[in-house]
């Protein structure tokens, strides 16, 4: 896009400083969130096997989650500052609270399950984690969208859904790996359904992003999103076709879907970095909007009188 002016081609925005931990957390967080829902629902409909396994899976993920987040901090010893405030304007702060509650609940429940004591408390914990699971699985979409990175911000409508679907798929797939096929029916349905839904949402997102979305076809983001598509769909296919009969297929399919979902999160992560790197993704849409709707960011001489408006 040569028609875009810039300052020596330098980026207007700063690249996210997040490292590998964050996209990994986007995945594990999703697994944790969705699993806690699966766990209680399965119990509700009498699938104790699935319920117990997914409870453990969710708890395991919830143990990993804070470690990932803390290790990404510039000053890890200050991780607890996250709970210094309660800020509805900060998806990360809200996320921290959600993770705190959900993690606490699911791990408590898992522990009590393991020891087989305090049934009522465990049930309460499971309920809490059931309630906080869905937000945990989807808030990360808002977290990423609530930035100035064009490829993220412009996808704010789709991202929570996309991440939700991905979470569902990965939770289901994970369950397929650890659960005997007989009792893993719902998990297979979730895995396959999640992957399908996610495919549709991806398409919708690209339609909305247009030129801004081209980063998903370039560089690291491109590689990861292709990998994501291939692995997730092939895994889903395998689960759908042979998941019920062969344990091996279930494990492999589940693993493939999980890997695919992990790649999806890395694709989004890198798309963000690449989108920040090139000024055209910032300048062009803004310039177009400015010329279309007229901008108030700049005040031309003839407007100067008018712009001396109240509120200053």
């Amino acid at each position, binding site marked *: 896009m040569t028609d875009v002016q810039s300052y020596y081609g330098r980026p207007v925005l700063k690249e996210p400083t997040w490292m590998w931990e964050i996209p990994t957390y986007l995945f594990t967080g999703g697994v944790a969130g969705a699993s806690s829902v699966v766990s209680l629902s399965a119990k509700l409909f009498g699938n104790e096997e699935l319920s117990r396994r997914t409870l453990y899976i969710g708890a395991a993920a919830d143990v990993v989650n804070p470690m990932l987040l803390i290790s990404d901090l510039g000053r890890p010893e200050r991780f607890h500052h996250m709970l210094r405030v309660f800020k509805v*304007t900060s998806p990360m702060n809200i996320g921290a609270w959600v993770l705190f509650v959900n993690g606490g609940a699911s791990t408590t429940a898992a522990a009590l399950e393991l020891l087989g004591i305090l049934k009522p408390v465990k049930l309460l914990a499971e309920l809490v984690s059931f309630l906080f699971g869905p937000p945990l699985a989807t808030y990360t979409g808002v977290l990423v969208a609530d930035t100035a990175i064009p490829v993220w911000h412009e996808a704010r409508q789709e991202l929570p859904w996309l991440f939700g679907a991905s979470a569902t798929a990965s939770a289901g797939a994970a369950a397929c790996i650890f659960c005997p096929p007989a009792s893993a029916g719902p998990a297979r349905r979730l895995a396959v359904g999640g992957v399908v839904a996610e495919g549709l949402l991806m398409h919708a997102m690209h339609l909305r992003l247009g030129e801004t979305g081209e980063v998903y076809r370039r560089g690291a983001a491109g590689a990861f999103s292709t990998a994501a598509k291939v692995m997730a769909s092939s895994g889903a296919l395998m689960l759908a076709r042979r998941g019920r009969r062969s344990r091996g297929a279930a494990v492999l399919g589940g693993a493939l879907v999980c890997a695919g979902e992990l790649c999806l999160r890395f694709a989004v992560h890198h798309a963000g970095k690449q989108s920040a790197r090139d000024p055209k993704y910032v300048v062009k849409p803004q310039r177009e909007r400015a010329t279309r709707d007229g901008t108030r960011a700049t005040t031309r001489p003839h407007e100067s009188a008018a712009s001396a408006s109240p509120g200053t």
Partner: protein
Amino acid sequence: MKLRRLIASWPVVHQLKNGDRLALGPAVKSQRSHTLKPRIHDADHVVQSICPYCAVGCGQLVYVRDGEVTHIEGDPASPISRGRLCPKGQASKSYVQSPLREYKVKYRRPYGTRWEELDLETAMDMIADRVIETRAATWQAETEGGNPANRTLAIGNLGGATLDNEENYLIKKLMTALGVVQVENQARI
């Protein structure tokens, strides 16, 4: 008790109590932010100085604490600079405290391949001797033409444009008395 204080200091409590519901302002102010003040307020004394770089002659305020310069900024009282400084003048503190600044006499003996340490007093004494010896050895009482010369052409002194008037005065006074005529500074170059 301690716990109560801890809870009281919890910003979330301030959020709910003091009207900063979104926790964007006073509620989240840290202890440091509350007690923060400019370090020049801790200075033992402030000195009015003049920038050492170009000849515009900007006024400087030098803030000192515990015998160390803690900050240098423009002197608003100066009718020339009105408190403003260029990047060089602004960096005067970093100049005075440069990581490369030398604090010790360094001595290189003839044909030596490295610097050696030398005590300041000894160095001064050696330099005095060099001047006296060179002067004695190369003294020119008269020119070939038999006109008075009263000088040595074997010693020179360079520099002055970056020095104080008082320093230049002593240099010229001493060199004239010594018969050293090759006294020059940047004004020439």
